[in-house]
């Protein structure tokens, strides 16, 4: 597999307080990498450095030449005084035709809301609009920061299903930040636990046995992994890459 994005030895501090130290992370083509970690673990800072929005104090980020990134930021508040339709918001991604914008909105299932003011969308609809804007760029890498935030529980499942379908269709790599261990475990190819540094990394199911993971997420976190193991056989049909290597864990029922 070729790397879309590879970072080595990243470090960042604010006011002499180290937020990240010696972080290595890579995303390969077609791979879903999930970044988890407690609040204040530096997930957002790491994402910002990888996206080029902030400079690291040390280390380097290498991107595949000509890499196109689709980005779904965590929180967007758009001033109520700005009259902006959904289609127009999505079209801000660059110079795109009406047909291209309509196709992107149809792909994420909000074609019917195209003329609605962007501020009128529900949490789930807004995430779909953001995804449509990201897809418009035909990204090779999707970077998603807490995509299920502000979405109700049933909406979250639907959103993750949509994400999985879209990723499979476009064959793009994914770097995802999420709090939701349960969903993370069901979908990721690889999980990276961050707490200032990379605590552990590996296939989702293997992490439940990792003491570093248990220390970070406690018994409930480990339980999420156990649930995942039971349900895995029924869920992997929606994974982005059906041919990906499951390893031995699929047959273990912890």
């Amino acid at each position, binding site marked *: 597999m070729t790397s879309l994005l590879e970072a080595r030895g990243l470090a960042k501090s604010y006011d002499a307080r180290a937020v990240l130290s010696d972080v290595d992370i890579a995303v390969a083509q077609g791979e879903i990498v999930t970044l988890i970690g407690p609040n204040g673990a530096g997930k957002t800072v790491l994402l*910002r450095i990888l*996206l*080029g*929005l902030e400079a690291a104090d040390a280390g380097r980020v290498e991107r595949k030449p000509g890499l196109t*990134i689709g*980005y779904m*930021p965590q929180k*967007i508040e*758009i*001033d109520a*005084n*700005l*009259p*902006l*339709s959904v289609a*127009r*918001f999505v079209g*801000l*991604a*660059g110079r795109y035709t009406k047909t291209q914008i309509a196709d992107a909105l149809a792909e994420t299932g909000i074609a019917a809301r195209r003329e609605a003011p962007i501020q009128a969308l529900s949490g789930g609809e807004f995430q779909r609009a953001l995804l449509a*804007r990201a897809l418009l*760029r035909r990204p090779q890498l999707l*970077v998603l920061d807490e995509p299920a935030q502000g979405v109700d529980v049933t909406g979250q499942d639907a959103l993750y299903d949509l994400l999985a379908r879209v990723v499979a269709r476009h064959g793009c790599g994914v770097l995802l930040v999420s709090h939701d261990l349960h969903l993370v475990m069901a979908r990721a190819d690889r999980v990276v636990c961050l707490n200032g540094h990379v605590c552990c990394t590996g296939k989702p199911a293997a992490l439940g046995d990792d003491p570093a993971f248990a220390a970070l997420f406690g018994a409930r976190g480990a339980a999420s992994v156990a649930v995942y193991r039971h349900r895995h056989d029924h869920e992997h049909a929606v994974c982005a890459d059906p041919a990906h290597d499951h390893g031995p864990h699929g047959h273990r029922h912890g």
Partner: protein
Amino acid sequence: MDDFVLRALAAGLGLAAIAGPLGSFVLWRRMAFFGDALAHSALLGVALGFLLHVDVNLGMVAMCVAFALALTGLLARSRLAPDTLLSISAFTALSAGLVVLSFLDTVRVDLIGYLFGDLLAVSPSDLVWIWGGALVALAGLAVIWRPLLATTVHADLAAVEGTRVGQVRLCFVLLLALVVAVAAKIVGALLVTALLIVPAAAARRFARSPEQMAVGAATVGALAVAGGLGASLLLDTPSGPSVVLTASLLFALSLL
């Protein structure tokens, strides 16, 4: 009609044409306080213009631009809340302007005119400044329109998509400084922000797109200039405040 009335109308309409679109962005970017701080520095520009024997209009533009750049730098580095920093800067600049003017014994400055504007005192050379400034600012705004809109909606997202966010923001701040300096002459340093904010706010309810709001704001501004000027002539009221009051009236009507 008298020449000075036509000049006043032409000056006001030129200003309304740029204040509408630019003011819409000030509203969307929540930069009203920033614009107001810039306007407070205009008087210092007037004072320095007299002191250094350069054109007063040039002094105001140079001062507003320098002040805008300094404020942008301070805001990026300071730990103070932005409104605290902007307030301190605004009142410092205004007071410095008044103090410097007091040193100029030989010059009689129409202070009320500079603070509250005097549309009816616009000279032919002022008119050139106003229309020149308005056209330059309109052209500049047209060039950065799309990236500025993307940056306004979400700067990080725009940056990942390839927009040069820093450059776009800088251009906007420079355009704002230019327009504030030019407008300070007409409606006065203390009322400039009203001309940016009120017409844009009045146009909001009727706009379905950013462009409609910009054009609507320019239209409301033009109506406010015409109405305010008429009232000023008819009732012998001060012209700057009359224009602002007319704009406020139109805003109130837009809410009905």
